[in-house]
């Protein structure tokens, strides 16, 4: 399975009467974007904003972020299940607009829990280095829900993260709309000349190299357009991620953008045939309130790694709630079967007495720290605020100085390996 990801570099973004690439400037037809989004009746309205690196802009209530891509050769298309047919992807050539991102934003829908949700992008100032999306040219879509989809008497939450079924349906529509716009923009790269081409192909290699898997703990992502609880785990080829088969967002844990540009998968791919024999990416995880759930989920991840004959695994874990137990159990089960592990993990500690783990097992003895989620930052006001006016947890005027934990800065502590933020423990 060979995929070329061809990068078309973009240095500027302007709203214009047409959607096109003009040299290295991306022109975006605001009305065309609005029409495309409002084809979906879930939305009463959508605002389209541009936020560029270095501008004095704060984006609040940010949700998923995706990268504009378009498939120019090979089966299927980008974002299968949302934009193209849900057929297997990951072959041929895919174009990307390097340096551009589509950011979805909006206040919480009725029936949606708010405190797992707050995400901020400061395009300038001391908060900017924490979010990778301060470095991208962002087309920000600010959605307003069509309240006709929300019944007067509220439904019971389906789960604590997703909220009511109506809220979950609405947020899926938000995700889908962002991906449709990303594909619209990505299509402009079809006729351009790429700056560089990254080839991803896990061809047979020296059998003496260590057989390595990436084991990626996801909290119910979309996979080929369907919500994927993964209690029994699944194997994907990294190329499928690069084509947008894996989609979704969890506060500072995952975003579609960093699954499309997944740095751990790309690093393993780059070293395939030289230092490692990269076998692919195992996705696992579910909502696991009971012990049996945790045993099922963690066993599945380790079992699939064993079935692949893996000798080593890089875990991307979730250090929160029940998920943290699943991470550690899966690592323990791998190590017990001789599969050596490392873990990318954010610190959730609060104060010196708190070691920063929800749960830990001694087998997790090789950890790369992706930053401290609960460290508080005070960020000065910026000139313009997009996405709303008020932060919700705690309530703060987003136009003023705000004090927020690092985890609110979009993808600051992401475990896909792109970041440099870390913490040393003295």
């Amino acid at each position, binding site marked *: 399975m060979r995929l070329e990801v061809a990068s078309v570099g973009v240095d500027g973004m302007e709203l214009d009467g047409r959607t096109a690439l003009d040299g290295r400037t991306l022109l975006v037809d605001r009305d065309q974007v609005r029409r495309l989004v409002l084809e979906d009746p879930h939305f009463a309205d959508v605002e389209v904003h541009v936020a560029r690196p270095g501008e004095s802009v704060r984006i609040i209530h940010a949700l998923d972020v995706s990268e504009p891509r378009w498939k120019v050769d090979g089966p299927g298309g980008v974002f299968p299940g949302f934009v193209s047919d849900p057929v297997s992807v990951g072959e041929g050539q895919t174009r990307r607009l390097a340096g551009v991102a589509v950011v979805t934003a909006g206040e919480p829908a009725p029936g949606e829990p708010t405190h797992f949700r707050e995400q901020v992008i400061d395009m300038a100032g001391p908060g900017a*280095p924490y979010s990778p999306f301060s470095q991208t040219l962002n087309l920000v879509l600010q959605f307003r829900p069509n309240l006709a989809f929300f019944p007067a008497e509220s439904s019971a*939450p389906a789960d*604590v993260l997703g909220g009511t079924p109506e809220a979950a349906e609405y947020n899926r529509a938000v995700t889908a709309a962002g991906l449709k716009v990303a594909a619209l923009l990505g299509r402009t790269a079809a006729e351009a000349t790429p700056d560089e081409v990254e080839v991803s192909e896990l061809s047979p290699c020296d059998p003496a190299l*260590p057989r*390595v898997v990436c084991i990626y703990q996801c909290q119910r992502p979309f996979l080929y357009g369907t919500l994927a609880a993964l209690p029994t785990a699944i194997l994907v080829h990294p190329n499928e991620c690069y084509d947008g088969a894996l989609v979704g967002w969890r506060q500072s844990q995952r975003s579609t953008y960093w699954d499309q540009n997944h*740095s*751990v998968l*790309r*690093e*393993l791919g780059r*070293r395939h045939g030289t*230092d*490692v024999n990269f076998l692919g990416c195992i996705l696992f995880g579910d909502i696991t309130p009971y012990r049996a759930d945790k045993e099922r989920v963690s066993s599945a991840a380790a079992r699939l790694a064993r079935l692949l004959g893996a*000798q*080593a*695994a*890089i875990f991307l874990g979730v250090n929160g*709630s029940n998920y943290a137990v699943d991470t550690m159990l899966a690592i323990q089960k791998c190590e017990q079967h001789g599969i*050596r*592990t*490392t873990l*990318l*993990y954010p*610190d*959730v*500690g*609060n*104060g*010196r*007495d*708190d*070691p*920063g*783990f*929800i749960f*830990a*097992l*001694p087998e*997790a*003895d*090789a*950890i*790369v*720290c*992706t*930053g*401290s989620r609960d*460290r508080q930052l005070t960020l000065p006001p910026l000139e313009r605020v997009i996405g709303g006016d008020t932060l919700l947890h705690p309530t703060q005027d987003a136009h003023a100085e705000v004090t927020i934990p690092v985890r609110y800065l979009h993808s600051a502590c992401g*475990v*896909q*390996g*792109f*970041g*440099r*933020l*870390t*913490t*040393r*423990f*003295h």
Partner: protein
Amino acid sequence: MSTLRVVHYLNQFFAGVGSEEQADTPPGRRDGPVGPGLPLQAALGDRAQIVATVYCGDNYAVEHEGAVDEILALIAREHPDLLIAGPAFAAGRYGLACGEVCARAEAELGITAVSGMHPESTAADLYRTRVLLASTRDTALGMADAVRAMARLALARHAGETLGTPADEGYIPTGERVYFFHEQTAAERAVAMLLAKTRGEPYATEWAVPQYHRVEPAPPIRDLASARVALITTGGVVPTGNPDRLEAAYATKWLRYPIGGLDDLVPERWTSIHGGFNTTNINEDPDRMAPLDALRALEREGVFRELHELMFTTTGNTAAIPTMRRFGQEMVRELRAAEVDGVILTSA
């Protein structure tokens, strides 16, 4: 640069007063260095001088109320710049005394205080986040290395130098976090670490998992019908309005509320303020979290003799384990004093 004034704290054994039979010795002082103070002085060189040695018996220091006040008074009289305590190695009472004297000397006398002990000792666990502790061996065989490390750390800390990592500098991890942007991405670091580990080459985790203390379950209650039982919850159940402001997460306290005359936790009077789950069902009937109604029924049936008149409560959500361990120890002390035989502990 003037020579720094140092007070060295020792127990009765290392001060040369005597061994266990002298463990009740009250605090005292000697001029200059004594015992381990001699190699310590050698390690300090001419930058600092041990002007006095303050000592106290192991029992006296941890059992006698006001012992640490007396020790601090002796230290304060010397107007020191530095307090160096121990090393205590893996000793129990001695380690606790070193930790407490150093913590209070920094807080109350405003001086730099450093000790040394074995990283797996009880006192290290209790004091490492508050006192800079040199990491030592478990016995006095490690004396030479220990005093050199304590001297170096004490001088560096007094000079306000930024210390390197615990492994590089030889101190017990303090829990302090240093935030920075790494030269390499997390992906590059993770792959390099995995390859080193797979090849059997040395590697260092960026962050060590905590070691949990195993708690041995108590033996079953032999005669439940004559037992006094207490109700404890970590489910954040408090009187409505939360008058004592129990935290919804990261609890810093536990509370006790009288339930002596009550048969039931009614929703008008009781609420869970726990921040880690959806409390709607609990707050329709707080007995679902702290089952007072069911315990009263069992009490009436004579399954156990009586329910303790106080309910203990805290919030377990995202709590720090050392804090929770302390809560447990404090609760047990009170329960023992109240002759409670068993506990029903509920959590969210």
